[in-house]
């Protein structure tokens, strides 16, 4: 239901997008440990508050994009426009 700011197409309904999630650093596959890799595969921060999320505009420009979303209010803004809040 929320509207997402696509840098190419403008404000569009989230139904047009696929949700990817918070970008995670991909461990080096040649040196990673089981624990690191499984963390990367399965563990999510699930933060209450501002998160940076990747979405895929699958019914639009087919670009992956980043937005910031407050998971408690669903307020969304383009990524990178506000300095990140310090982790508590």
């Amino acid at each position: 239901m929320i509207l997402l700011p696509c840098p190419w197409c403008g404000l569009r309904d989230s139904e047009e997008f696929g949700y990817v999630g918070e970008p995670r650093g991909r461990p080096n596959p040649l040196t990673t440990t089981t624990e690191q890799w499984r963390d990367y595969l399965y563990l999510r921060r699930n933060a209450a508050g501002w998160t940076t999320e990747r979405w895929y505009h699958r019914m639009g420009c087919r670009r992956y994009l980043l937005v910031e979303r407050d998971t408690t209010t669903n307020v969304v803004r383009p990524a990178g426009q506000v300095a990140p809040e310090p982790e508590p």
Partner: protein
Amino acid sequence: MSERLSRQPGEVIDRAASLTFDWNGRTFPAYVGDTIASALAACGVRVFSRSFKYHRPRGLLTASYLDPGCMVQVGDEPNVRGAHRLVESGMDVRSQDTWPSLALDVKAANELARRALPPGFYYKTFMSPGRLWPAYERVLERFAHGGVLGSGPASAGREVRYDKRHAHPDVLVAGGGPAGMAAAVAAAQAGSSVLLVEEEHELGGHLRWGDPLDLAALRELREQVDATPAIEVLTDSVVLGRYDGNLVSVVQRGLPDIDERLVKARAKTLVVASGLIERPYVFAGNDVPGVMLSTAVRRLVNLYAVRPGERAVVLTANAEGDAAAADLERVGVEVVRVDARQGGDIVSVHGRSRVRSVELGDGRTLGCDLVVTATGWTAAVSLLTMAGDVPRYDPRAARFRPDPSLRSPDVLATGGVVGDGTLDELVAHADAVGREAARRAASAPAGPLPELATRAHPELVRGRTHGIVDFSEDVSSKDLFAAVAEGYDSAELAKRYTTATMGPVQGKLETVNVVAIVAEATGRTIAETGTTTWRPPYAPVTLGALAGREREPVRRSPLQSWHERQGAVPLVAGAWIRPEHYGDPAGEARNVREGVGVIDVTPIGKLDLRGPDVTRLLNLVYVNKWSKLEVGRVRYGVMCGEDGVVIDDGVTARLGDEHFLMTTTSTGEAAVWTWLESWLQTEHPEWQLHVTPVTTSYASMNVAGPRSRELLALVVDDVAVESEAFPYMHVRTGRVAGVDGCVLMRIGFTGELSFELHVPAGYGLHVWQTLLERGRDLGVRPFGVEAQRILRLEKGHLIVGQDTDGLTGAYGAGLDGLVRLDKGDAAGLPELRWQHETRDGTRLVGLQTTQESLVPVEGSQLVDHDGLICGRVTSSRLSPALGRSVCLGQVEARFAEPGTRVTVRLLDGGTTTAVVTEHLAQVDPEGRRLRG
């Protein structure tokens, strides 16, 4: 006996247009404009339904959409709101869930057993033993409430149609009473486009059943709305819910050709002008037909010119009650006023299928046939709470009122839901809110909003006796006291335990009464008890309207019409319609093994890859190595996710130095494209390559069988097809049947010598027909997907998603020879490494049943000696080439050695034995036919 009055100033019936309709098999007169309920009430009908649990006779309570006593069956449409639905000529209306008749309902015996049906009765009685539940269910469903659904959409010659619409108003106004109309006009005059949504058949709210001054104001407001082109009015329409970003869903009814339409409106500002709902009063006998709310009386008299009774007792605590009494006196009803503001009260009503008498608080008992209550209001806050509002109880006004502090700033409220006032005060407030809504819709910063005060109102919920609280679910105040005594002492718990507020009215009439009675039973205040949560949908909506019209896209190859002309049996495969077979799948398969066949494989996903970095991408997404693939070669590849699970497979051909054609499974094309793009856009934006989907640019066909080379030679002129010139797993481009720009791959999913042709889609049918004509002497025949499945299973080629599942890794899929762990980065590489080390999980194996002709159904369980499940059959067919069954299966690694015997559980409860075969392929495991 006619209860129809002489002409009333605000009546909505058309006395010049009379009609007849049927009620429980008897014919009744009505006027156009009547609701089902008003027409029946005008004919003296008092009982409309039987109650949910005790099957007590029920009459009109609110005479509005919400009326819990007036749900009826109309033709094959159940649960029609009889006090809202307009009557039509010849309508077949019946009472619901009464047997044998409304007047004599045997299930009323429930009431004798009332003491045996306490709250939670179903939960307590029918819980155990669980195995008896199907038997309980059969008995209970006969006692369930509700009408009978027609056998299909076209039953009784009636085609049910649904529709969906997207709207983008600047301002959406929910509620078309005086405040809603004024807010809409103000917002439109300030430059906004406005969608004004009203539940009733006409705009006007309570003005419609008001006095001559109200009617004059109504005319003026309607004229203003009509004169404002920026307002679109939807009547007989209800806002169902408000979601993030002010997405507002509306169900629109009563359209000429469509049963229901779902409007999805993205409003910049939402104005909630939902008004007030009159609350019933709780006392013994408050559900006897003839006990009704003051607004019901005013509707019946003023809108439909119906006299609701002859001798009335009116319990009034407010102006609406006073006005109802005045209305009744004006039309000749004998009225006794009981003023609750002066301490007057009703103790109980006597009567069963109609009111006989009423016992008052002062000890008097009066004979009467109509008891009217006007004891308070509930603000219709549902939509506001969906926008974050947490209503607070205002004891002075005796109702919950919205609190904008937590509400989203793009949602405003006006009218009765906010406060009280004269009509002028309400309209002035709505005017200011409408202008502010327009400002906020134009992205102006939020400005101040005016206040709307409330009037004092006595807090009246329950008299000195127990009565019905939830009329839909037959829950009494006594039941709520019992629930509290059993420990369900919060409103949310008591609600779930007793099912109060969970019936068709969904709490709109009774929630505040439930809260107040739980408060009384627990000794807390109403404010301390708090209200329950409101969720969408606000009003009932059919699943058909939510689903809308069927708009599922279907993909068809350019050859599909040809297949249909040949009588091909269609198969829905993902988004595609394909030929499953042309009548004889086994014969089609044999023809491929012995001669030559052609199959339409257009749905195979095709991605055109160009750029200097394509091999880097291929190395990353496939489990095997791609660096050394030469121009003119084709290679099979399998893709795994980062979790090492097989996600897709296919062949990729190198057409030029920097030009590749990748093929994917028929249903995997979109997912593979997305997967490639995710690597290119997020992990390796520095790589230079483009991915272009070309699936539908080509018509694809596979020419398969020992004579396929002979056939191909007849239709190509610039491609050498001899074995040495065009070896297995090579690709060529050239002219086929005179068509330039074709891609030819020598590959073999069927296990036979075969060539896959990708030809420009517009020439697909031409090439296909040329192949069939030129190959007639070779015995060429088309074959369908089923023959292809048989052939590939004989050859042991896996299908991703059928022979693998969401846990099957590359090694589990039997791809040991394909995976390369020494090639640098690759998707899922660490998992592949660990799969290689541990070798746990199941493995894909070939299986041969010892009873040769027995084909276990796909999905049959494999069990070990102890009867524990150790795998399953993933594919099974009768092989025309071998004359016996061939299977693939996933089995635990300890049973994967060739020669191992496993037990197969059959559908009929029996078992058989299967032996793990030496190879996945049971026909030509050496691949001589392929490479020939």
